């Protein structure tokens, strides 16, 4: 009895093994149908790949005003921090160095002349002393002529003294004139804006002016800096703004913000130029949200990435057979992939295809949620019976 059972089992086992081999071997002759549980559609739509970042509002322009320490004497600031200035408005005054130098040189001359004057006066005193002593001396036939020569010399020296004093007066007059004509020079603002900072210690830049116009600045990491480029459109949002603002990426820095360090993520700054300045009041320094349009594809055929398996999609053919189609992927936004290769809008493709063969007839399960009782009642009785009949006769 046992032997019989074993032979029977052996035969069964053999049959099963042979069948399974023949069914599953490569290039098997056994046609297999494909179960397609879920499917999705090829859609035509616009694809936009955006990147969300945050940024901060900063003044679009900053003007730095400098004062050279040697160019004169600083007089005073004409504006204060926080004050609004127009283009061309005077910021501070100083007296230029030329006139000061001139006055100094005049004064130096005067000093020199004063010394000369002193020397001459001393000289004259000495001569007069000698003249007096000589005139009160012995009866000398030459005494008169000596006294006369002293007098002559004294007169000469007095004449020279007069000249020097005249020079001194001349220089004093010149100094007066120079000081009268001393104009204060001003340095004006090159643009309209607000005075952000004044250095009262005269550290350069002595005045910083920021424009009213604003732009947005943000930070990118190492991967992002390669993705974002100048010219990309940006949408700017903030809870302080009623509507989105439009802008464009105006620059992406090539060099990182701080010196590159090993194992430290480098960061890169980028700026967004606003197309229009915000109409509502929003403070400088406010944080805003940015949506940068990195790439776009308009009116393209798209399919869910879950329908793609090894660069192929499995189209539910209109002949009831599965069509395996190799595709070329274009832009990918999230789970949606642009199809560059051929395709038609509305074509149905298998979702998450697994082990589907080309040209296999496909069957689909009944999706209870899509059944419609109302549709059923509107179906003509003939149709209803026809489909039941087909099920009855299919074996």
């Amino acid at each position, binding site marked *: 009895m046992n032997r019989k059972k074993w032979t029977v089992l052996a035969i*069964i086992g053999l*049959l*099963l093994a*042979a*069948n*399974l081999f*023949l*069914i599953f071997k490569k290039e098997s*002759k*056994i*046609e*297999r*149908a*494909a*179960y397609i549980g879920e499917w999705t559609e090829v859609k035509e739509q616009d694809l936009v790949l955006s990147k969300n970042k945050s940024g901060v509002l900063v003044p679009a322009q900053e003007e730095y005003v400098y004062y050279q320490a040697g160019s004169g004497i600083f007089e005073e600031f004409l504006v204060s921090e926080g004050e609004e200035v127009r283009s061309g408005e005077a910021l501070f005054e100083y007296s230029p160095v030329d006139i000061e130098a001139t006055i100094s040189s005049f004064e130096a001359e005067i000093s020199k002349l004063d010394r000369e004057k002193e020397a001459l006066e001393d000289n004259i005193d000495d001569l007069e002393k000698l003249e007096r002593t000589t005139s009160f001396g012995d009866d000398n036939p030459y005494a008169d002529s000596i006294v006369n020569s002293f007098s002559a010399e004294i007169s000469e020296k007095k004449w020279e003294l007069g000249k020097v004093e005249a020079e001194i007066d001349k220089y004093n007059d010149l100094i007066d004139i120079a000081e009268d004509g001393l104009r204060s020079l001003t340095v004006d603002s090159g643009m309209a804006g607000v005075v952000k900072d004044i250095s009262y210690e005269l550290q350069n830049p002595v005045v910083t002016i920021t424009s009213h116009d604003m732009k947005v600045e943000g930070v990118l990491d190492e991967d992002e800096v390669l993705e974002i480029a100048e010219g990309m459109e940006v949408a700017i949002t903030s809870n302080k703004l009623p509507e989105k603002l439009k802008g464009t990426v105006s620059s992406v820095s090539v060099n990182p913000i701080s010196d590159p360090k090993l194992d430290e993520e480098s960061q890169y700054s980028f700026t967004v130029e606003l197309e229009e300045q915000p109409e509502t009041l929003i403070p400088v320094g406010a944080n805003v949200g940015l949506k940068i349009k990195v790439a776009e594809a308009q009116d393209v055929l798209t399919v869910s990435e879950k329908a793609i398996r090894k660069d192929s999609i499995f189209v*539910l*053919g*209109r*002949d*009831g057979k599965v069509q395996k189609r190799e595709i070329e992927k274009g832009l990918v936004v999230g789970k949606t992939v642009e199809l560059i290769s051929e395709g038609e809008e*509305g074509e*149905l493709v298998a979702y998450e295809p697994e082990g589907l063969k080309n040209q*296999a*007839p*496909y*069957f*689909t*399960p*009944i*999706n*209870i949620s*899509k*059944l*419609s009782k109302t*549709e*059923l009642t509107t*179906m003509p009785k003939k149709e*209803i019976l*026809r*489909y*039941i*009949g*087909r*099920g*009855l*006769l*299919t*074996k």
Partner: protein
Amino acid sequence: MFFQVRLFRGLFSPYVAAHQLHKAEQIHGIWTRTSMILAISLILAGISAFFGIGNESLSKQIYDVSAAEFENMKALFAVGQVVLSMLITTALIFFPALVFWVFTDIEYSKLVVIGLLTAAISLLEKAMLIPFQLFFGLDEASSPFGLGVVAQYVTRLEFLIQLLGNISIFSIWMMVLHYLYLKWTTEKKNGVLLLIVLSTNLFIWIFSALFSYIKFEVML
């Protein structure tokens, strides 16, 4: 004494059950077992149809009708499939019984019991086929349990493939069961019984193959 229809016992201890059947004067539990078999047939067919097994002919219409209509069509188709399955099961129970009743002297009810047993086997086969149909897309003719696979490699004749496909481990088991039960419940000669059993089963297989071969469904 009476015979209580018990399917497991009938299938796996046929000798004992057959002799009890032979000696019994009353048989209990035929209708309950019949309803049970039919219910299982309904459930199995329902599951199979729910997964869409066999509805390939409707698939191409997926583009022509709305989603709701498509599902409705499949649901109606499923109804047809279930009805067919139940009809087949019923035939398997009562038709061989009828033939045997004509050619032997056994009571019809006893032969119906045999029919119930063989129907149970056919349901078992169907249940075991469902995973192959669902996961591997195989149809009945390509069942790993039968000769259809080999047939497809050997011949191109569709009818022959269908016929050989109907000969499977389970259908042979059914035939063996027919023979054994008849042998143990009647005095007729074994040779005659063998002939009857063979021809009946062969008839069923051929009829089934024809039904598959002639695609009636395209007429609708």
